[in-house]
């Protein structure tokens, strides 16, 4: 038996997973998917910023375009913090392709003209 807090939405359901991987306490289906994922391969969306070299806004926010394994968060941060970009930057454009060969891109979440 394991207890988990669902992080999919602000409701924050308290989930219980028994030894046969039955999930209870979830309000919606997403809770069940989350619980099983969290036990086998916990993953998160990473959001951070990248330095911009040629504008007065010195940073642009970015995110991973998919969830990444939780234990890779700090490794990805290191790569992002070594990277700089040149404006203009457009929302959803790729800042770093296939980071750490995870099959995940780092994309801009804002615009700098």
């Amino acid at each position, binding site marked *: 038996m394991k207890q*988990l*807090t*669902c*992080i*999919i*939405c*602000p409701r*924050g359901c*308290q989930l219980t997973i028994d030894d046969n991987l039955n999930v209870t306490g979830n309000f919606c289906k997403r809770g069940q998917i989350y619980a099983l994922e969290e036990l086998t391969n916990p993953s*998160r*969306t*990473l*959001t*951070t*910023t990248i*330095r911009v070299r040629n504008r007065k*806004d*010195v*940073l642009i*926010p970015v*995110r991973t375009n998919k969830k990444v394994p*939780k234990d890779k*968060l*700090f490794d990805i*941060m290191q790569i992002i*913090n070594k990277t700089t970009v040149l404006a203009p930057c457009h*929302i959803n454009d790729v800042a770093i392709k296939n980071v750490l060969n995870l099959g995940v891109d780092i994309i801009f*979440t*804002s*615009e700098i003209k």
Partner: protein
Amino acid sequence: MINCQLVIIGGGSAGMASALKAYQEGIKDIIIIEKDDKLGGILNQCIHDGFGLDLFKEELSGPEYAYRFIQEIEKLNIRCFLSTFILGIDNDFNIKILNKDGVEIIKAHAIIFAAGCYERNAGAINLMGDRPSGIMSAGTAQKYLNIKGYMPSKRVVILGSGDIGLITARRMTLEGAEVLAVLEIMPYSNGLTRNIKQCLDDFNIPLYLSTTVKQVIGKSRLEKVIACRVDENGNFIDGSEIEFDCDTLLLSVGLIPNIGLIKDMGIRFSSTRGPVVDELLQTDKKGLFACGNCLHVHDLVDHVTNEGYLAGLGASLFLKNKIKENLNVEVIAKNYVSYVVPQYINTTLLDNITLKFRVKKPLKNVNIVISDDKRIIKRIPKLTLLPSQMENIVIKTLDLVQNNGKIYVDIEMKI
């Protein structure tokens, strides 16, 4: 002097939504006044995701959420005065502004006030001890990190477990700082449970409940925070002190509606510290509307956007002279309910009215009861109610038509 039908004060999520709605309702002569050099408000520094689940069924980051609205505003060519401060507003809606072009007066026919909120600071919580550098609000640290690009700290203690504090704890950790502790004076956390999980538990950051700062020590920079447990009356428990060697103390101890510009306009304010409003979000002053965090502090931006839409609708009805006050219902918060917005229902223009409120303390297994003096209008069972979560209850205006009096929002315990 500039003449304008509708002036919106604040270009954040509430202001942008209200502009879009008013425009859609046929009010095209709009000016948005924003003190920052871009639209988006606080969303611009909230680079984490989790916004927009209600409205877009997506998990967007703050800037992505804002961008959807900024794009619309730009497409419609709604006028925006950016990097513009407001020096004052008089009772005839003359708004005195200051920007790089100098001082100007805008004469508005209606105003939507959407100025957001600000963070409580060290003075507001009577923080005891020295006054070194390194004590700042969590939002200030967030701005340094996410907008300005400085790292304000290496070893941090965070006071207050509100969402901004939790999110900043994760952000500082990811950028290489060590977050030693999050302290919360109440016996329960004030943040969303998902944020406790994904911001603290994920990074093994300890949360100390019923614990607060007893003393801060430091000459020029903060050197030490002495935390202490408190009893149920909030008094320090001697001997329970814990010392943290840290260079920064972040305060996440509450948000207060930013109402400075309208506080002398002769209108009433409620216990939220925001203005008293009716169901169209009109204040006591006809033509002055308020929405978003300057009205009451929200926990979800989706709700702020919806409130902006409502204020935009209200202001457009006012400008078209369609508001006829044919009802006179006062909405009263009872017992465990700390406030309800709106405080009055004055018209039958809306079919449904959303009552928004918070409770004073965590409650389990209760009914929310909406009633008037004679009968119960609605009873909704709830497993849990938390002070950190705003509740929304929709009632039908038809249920009130007979009622020129009071309705009550109350919590009853299930037996």
